[in-house]
């Protein structure tokens, strides 16, 4: 029997990278050498350049740049690259007997000699043409090295002139000569192991990075054999892995990457840190490789999550002279001149509308400055606007903006600014409307237009804030005016002239009792009590979520009928005061205000089930993402419709609709986040940012992480425009901090395709403006980024579990990075993977998962793991059952309760008291494995737990609650649990760290003591697979463990429902060289195992004769393999997926000869 493996996909850490030229990058991940297009990060071609190994470095021949030497571990290979196609130059990889640390192309005229430095401080000169070692030179000091650099500092590159800088495990840098191995210099100064050494020809500097978290710069002079420490850079919070030096305008700069996931940029001459690129990738465990392109002033970094990230340095490397003039050549700043009528008057607030600056002075003058012709115009003046005012703009259309101004005395002005043409300086129409009929003088300049304006509220209280909210095509104005009573009015803007009061909201008491942010959400829900499912009977239900100045979030259910056709004018004073249906207090740190709220619907259709993500930008430097689930809405409906009497009882039981999923920082130095702009943002003012040509798929548009485009934020005294996709600031302005009136705008450039970003702010009582040209490439999403596996966001840490979902098309992975990712496998034309769904919400490592079919198109997904987390999701397939349409989070149990959710915690306890009591004694348990069995109509979840318990829950689909049915205690940690169905009777099998099998009948789970089959393995059982034998009364159980043993036992269930071993346990010891992590049956006599020795073996099993023989061995590229899954394809093919530090997908087929 023979077999064939077909490797399809590998993703692992990018351990090496190098610029081929400014358009192309070479990277190495695992054994693959890959050519990457710099601009798109697209893989042009790839090549297995170092089979069975990991590429640690790429060295391009400096004279013949199509010759590439790559090495890793103890082997090297020589590859040529012609017309973007890789090919081998030498037949075989050369395997040496020591680890290779560096390689140097020697200029002997024939390009046949390379110097290779080995980990035992030894150098060999290798002749590539004859494939022989020409010479071996040993350093006089024998020592283990982590790093070394071969360099020359003479004009002629003969081997005598080559020098080695070795970084020893004893914290020293040795400079020694290849002439005879003598040490010329011993550079002492590091307090830890040296990880990387670089050398600069131009400056004769040696750079060393170390375990002691520093980078040392040494000035060496080989003529007098002197070397001294020039400077020491401390900037990393962890070990410094790599550094690269480069020159710009004769100034030397240095880039360094470290375990702290930071990339530091140093000015060597000034001995200063220029910039620290920070938190570039949340969740990734490490960053391994670094390359610099001097011409382009760009660096590229290779990450542990298999991602490649580029950074343009130009922005940070402005020479000192430039800096004094302006921060950037593309950036201009100016102070706007404004002639005020009163000398004592000054500017209070400002907004930017269609290239015009609108500003309001302390004495109540409203001016407009037209930037194109620098004209100043008084729009109107009002004593009511004096001393305090707050402005909010709302683009009704691209050339129509509605400006609302709130005043100290409780009046709100509403101005309609209509522009004939956006780009020309044409006259605009200003249209002030007045709802209440109080009229005041208007500026003469607008005497010809409609001379009405509005005062909305009876002036009594100060207007603390006004906010425009958008919902579909409607605009709403939220007016916060009552500090004492917490009263807030919500108006709907009707036909741009009329405001209609639609809701009165009650804001619970807090120190600064007004909203700083809000968003409106609508859902369609069927009318309660009506059977009809006509769409007309679907009620548009409106909810408002608001954040107050003290960092509390409130959710309101508004009784508003969203219907633009009806112009009914009811008596609004009858409106009921709406109290929040749910509040989450202290969302932010130190009661920082919530600056903006966005509601993003993650589901495609406007169906009744919605899955909102609420994004809160907070002034504590974080953005927080909440989940708002419409299942909660329907549940609430049901509860309310039951009875009004029991309201007091059901109220505390009301399910929490808002759940904090996670909080993120953009960058650790950002102090406060003000606003976000999304990809395909629907707001009119950002329409010019959207690329019309680009067609985003549904998931691209709805993937929250991907849809974040720009952020407006502050750090220190600076304002910053941050680009999420490029991971850097596009614009900075030293405006003095956030505590001022400011606004921004994007404009089209008149001359070219570029955009202009304008930022205006009030400083020292006058207006300043900064503007900068932004290239389209800085704003638009790189075209294919999301489809490209090097750019797609995948697990940043070891993947712990993987399973195919229902077909070979979807794979689910869970990781130590607490994420679950659903990956779609497309193998119709060419094989590619798309990580479609990122399911967040676990607090700790995800250890296990299982599925439960609800019907043909819906599955329940149960995931669990560390910190006693359980989550239940619903996977909904499309009509044709081909694609996953959406995934909804249904239920979650966590040991830790959500941040600040005080009333929530009470209700949770009353809901699941048993869970809390059960886990109170030891809340640190990990759910090691789960399997779901069907019992009556509800799924039953069986967990193997780290405290040695089997916990069995019934999940009630109807109530969305878990009920503990049974708990069984065992003295050892249980690692695996499986269900077995024989003759329609289901059984449960659990496996522990003692190598024992525990067996139950699920029908009598209640008080049955399990039967035990002992010592299948010597130690913990890492994985189990079961297969029913043809006679269907018997099953074959295979277990694997740390003891490298594959054990098989045939079991049968007797008539009295006892398990009976039909055969003795057959143990195949020493099946692998290391712990076996996964086992799967292909057929009853054919199985596969995968081990941490990185071999996937398909075995043929002869149980009768206790024999097994390998059919085929595959060397897998994933170290620390933790999970294996298999699915049957057509035509005798099987597909394996294995995960660990990376992921690999391999097909297998038996060949019968």
């Amino acid at each position: 029997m023979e077999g064939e493996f077909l490797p399809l996909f590998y993703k692992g850490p990018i351990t090496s990278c190098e610029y081929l030229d400014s358009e192309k990058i070479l990277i190495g991940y695992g054994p693959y050498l890959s050519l990457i297009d710099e601009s798109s990060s697209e893989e042009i071609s790839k090549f297995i350049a170092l089979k069975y190994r990991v590429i640690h470095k790429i060295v391009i021949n400096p004279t013949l740049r199509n010759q590439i030497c790559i090495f890793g571990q103890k082997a090297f290979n020589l590859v040529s690259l012609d017309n973007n196609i890789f090919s081998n130059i030498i037949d075989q990889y050369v395997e040496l007997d020591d680890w290779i640390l560096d390689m140097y192309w020697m200029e002997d005229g024939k390009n046949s000699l390379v110097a290779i430095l080995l980990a035992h401080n030894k150098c060999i000169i290798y002749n590539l043409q004859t494939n022989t070692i020409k010479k071996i030179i040993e350093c006089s000091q024998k020592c283990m090295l982590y790093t070394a650099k071969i360099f020359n500092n003479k004009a002629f590159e003969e081997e005598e002139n080559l020098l080695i800088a070795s970084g020893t495990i004893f914290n020293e840098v040795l400079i020694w000569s290849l002439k005879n191995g003598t040490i010329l210099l011993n550079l002492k100064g590091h307090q830890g192991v040296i990880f990387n050494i670089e050398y600069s020809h131009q400056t004769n500097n040696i750079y060393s990075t170390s375990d002691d978290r520093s980078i040392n710069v040494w000035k060496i002079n080989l003529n007098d054999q002197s070397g001294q420490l020039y400077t020491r850079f401390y900037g990393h919070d962890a070990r410094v892995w790599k550094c690269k030096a480069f020159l710009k305008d004769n100034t030397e700069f240095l880039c360094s990457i470290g375990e702290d996931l930071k990339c530091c940029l140093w000015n060597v001459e000034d001995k200063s840190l220029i910039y620290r690129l920070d938190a570039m990738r949340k969740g990734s465990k490490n960053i391994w490789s670094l390359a610099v392109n001097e011409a382009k002033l760009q660096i590229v970094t290779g990450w542990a999550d298999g991602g490649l990230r580029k950074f343009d340095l130009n922005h940070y490397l402005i020479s000192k002279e430039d800096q004094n003039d302006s921060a950037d050549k593309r950036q201009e700043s100016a102070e706007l001149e404004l002639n005020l009528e009163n000398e004592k008057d000054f500017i209070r607030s400002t907004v930017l509308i269609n290239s015009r600056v609108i500003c309001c002075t302390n004495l109540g003058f409203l001016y407009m400055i037209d930037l194109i012709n620098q004209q100043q115009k008084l729009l109107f003046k009002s004593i009511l606007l004096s001393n305090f005012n707050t402005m909010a703009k709302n683009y009704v259309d691209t050339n129509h903006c509605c400006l609302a101004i709130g005043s100290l005395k409780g009046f709100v002005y509403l101005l309609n600014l209509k522009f004939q043409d956006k780009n020309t300086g044409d006259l605009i129409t200003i249209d002030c409307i007045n709802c209440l009929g109080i009229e005041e003088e208007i500026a003469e300049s607008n005497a010809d237009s409609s001379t009405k304006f509005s005062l909305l509220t009876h002036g009594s209280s100060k207007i603390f804030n006004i906010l425009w909210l958008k919902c579909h095509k409607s605009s709403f104005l939220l007016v916060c005016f009552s500090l004492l009573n917490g009263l807030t009015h919500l108006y709907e803007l009707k036909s741009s002239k009329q405001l209609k009061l639609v809701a009165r909201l009650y804001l619970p008491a807090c120190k600064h009792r007004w909203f700083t942010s809000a968003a409106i959400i609508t859902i369609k829900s069927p009318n309660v009590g009506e059977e009809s499912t006509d769409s007309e009977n679907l009620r548009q239900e409106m909810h408002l979520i608001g954040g107050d100045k003290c960092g509390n979030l409130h959710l309101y259910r508004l009784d508003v009928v969203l219907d633009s056709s009806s112009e009914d004018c009811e008596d609004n004073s009858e409106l009921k005061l709406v109290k929040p249906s749910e509040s989450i207090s202290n969302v932010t740190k130190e009661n920082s205000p919530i600056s903006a709220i966005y509601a993003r619907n993650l589901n495609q259709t406007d169906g009744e089930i919605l899955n909102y993500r609420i994004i809160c930008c907070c002034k504590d430097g974080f953005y927080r993402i909440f989940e708002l689930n419409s299942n909660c809405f329907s549940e609430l409906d049901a509860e309310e419709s039951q009875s009004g009497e029991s309201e007091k009882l059901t109220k505390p039981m009301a399910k929490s609709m808002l759940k904090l999923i996670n909080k993120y920082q953009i960058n650790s130095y950002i102090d406060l986040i003000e606003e976000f702009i999304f990809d395909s943002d629907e707001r009119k003012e950002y329409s010019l940012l959207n690329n019309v040509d680009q067609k985003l798929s549904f998931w691209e548009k709805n993937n929250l992480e991907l849809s974040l485009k720009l952020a407006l934020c502050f750090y220190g005294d600076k304002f910053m425009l941050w680009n999420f996709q490029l991971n850097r600031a596009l614009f900075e302005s030293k405006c003095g901090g956030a505590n001022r009136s400011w606004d921004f705008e994007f404009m089209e450039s008149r001359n070219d395709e570029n955009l202009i970003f304008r930022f205006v702010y009030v400083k020292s009582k006058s207006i300043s403006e900064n503007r900068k040209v932004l290239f389209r490439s800085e704003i638009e999403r790189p075209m294919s980024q999301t489809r490209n596996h090097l750019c797609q966001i995948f697990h940043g840490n070891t993947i712990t579990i993987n399973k195919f979902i229902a077909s070979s098309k979807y794979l689910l992975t869970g990781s130590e990075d607490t994420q679950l990712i659903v990956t779609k496998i497309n193998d119709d034309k060419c094989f590619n993977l798309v990580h479609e769904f990122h399911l967040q919400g676990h607090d700790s490592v995800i250890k296990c998962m299982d599925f439960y079919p609800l019907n043909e198109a819906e599955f329940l997904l149960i995931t669990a793991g560390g910190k006693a987390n359980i989550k239940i999701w619903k996977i909904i397939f499309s009509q044709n059952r081909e694609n996953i349409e959406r995934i909804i989070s249904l239920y979650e149990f966590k040991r830790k309760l959500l941040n600040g959710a005080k009333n929530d915690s009470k209700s949770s306890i009353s809901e699941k008291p048993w869970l809390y009591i059960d886990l109170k004694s030891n809340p640190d348990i990990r759910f090691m494995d789960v399997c779901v069995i069907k019992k009556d109509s509800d799924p039953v979840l069986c967990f193997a737990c780290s405290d040695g318990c089997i916990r069995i829950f019934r999940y009630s689909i109807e109530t969305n609650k878990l009920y503990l049915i049974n708990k069984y205690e065992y003295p050892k940690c249980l690692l695996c649990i499986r269900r077995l169905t024989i003759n329609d009777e289901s059984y449960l099998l659990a496996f522990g760290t003692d190598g024992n099998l525990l067996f139950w009948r699920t029908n009598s789970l209640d008080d049955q003591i399990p039967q035990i089959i002992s010592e299948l393995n010597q130690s913990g059982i890492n994985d189990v697979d079961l297969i029913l034998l043809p006679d269907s009364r018997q099953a074959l159980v295979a277990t694997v463990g740390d003891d490298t043993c594959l054990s098989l036992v045939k079991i049968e269930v007797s008539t009295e429902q006892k398990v009976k071993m039909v055969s003795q346990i057959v143990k195949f010891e020493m099946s692998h060289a290391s712990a076996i992590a996964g086992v799967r049956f292909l057929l009853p006599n054919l199985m596969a195992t995968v081990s941490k020795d990185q071999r996937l073996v398909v075995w043929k099993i002869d149980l009768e004769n206790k024999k097994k023989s390998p059919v085929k061995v595959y060397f897998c590229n994933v170290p620390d393999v933790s999970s294996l899954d298999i699915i049957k394809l057509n035509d005798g093919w099987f597909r394996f997926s294995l995960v660990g530090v990376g992921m690999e997908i391999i097909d297998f087929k038996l060949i019968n000869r």
Partner: protein
Amino acid sequence: MGRASKDKRDIYYRLAKENGWRARSAFKLLQINEEFKLFDNVKRVVDLCAAPGSWSQVLSRELFRDTNDSKIVAVDLQKMAPLDNGEKADLVVCDGAPDVTGLHDIDEFIQAQLVLAALNITTHVLKTSPDSKFVAKIFRGKDITLLFSQLKCFFNKVTVSKPRSSRNSSIEAFIVCEGYQPPLDYVPNMRNPLLDQKYSSLDELEGSTRFIVPFIACGDLNSSYDSDKTYPLSLDGKEYSFHEPLCQPISPPYEKAKLMRQQNQLGKQDDEHNSKLSDLTISN
């Protein structure tokens, strides 16, 4: 939460503190001994890579139990010199491990080099005898079979053992080599490092001819604690009390960087003149 949280997660960490061991690895040696009777008739022991010293603690407790004429030499690998007066050791142990980088292939290689360096010393100091033993920590990765076959050249019997105090998921294991019997023509040489062997053919990489040694799980299954299990804080009905760790790391490499971070000096020029950190600066 807080200081007890590590006690909750790791039973052996906690037991080590409660029993006065310098590190949890003490249990590993004790459990290997249970299986292999390492200390029977042993008078002379060399403990390589001794820091933080928990194995030396075990050795001294076990060896001086009944007698006073035992001898333990505990050294760090780098400063090791052959033992004086020609008397050779009955047992060499090595619990050393490098700081792992996270790149599995490098970590496995460095660990193998450490074992081979220990083996090189061992060939100088270990008695050629069917009873002499060598115990070392290994990482069982993709090339572990190369190390197995190198060790098999020097010993009659090579076994991989995993004490129950070592976690199920960890890549760490211990190699127990019994009966030192070097090849006939072998001359111990400290000048040249021992290297691990090469794959002789690609068949060894994807074939079935790899050299694999037997595995034994050590430590009594019923009486020893399960390192993967989550235990409640109160064990066997006894009330829990917190114990401070016995020893903290002594001058770690990152000491200065950490101090600078605390003083908010990271990224600032490392000026030695005005720095309060002058006591930590470079010795040239």
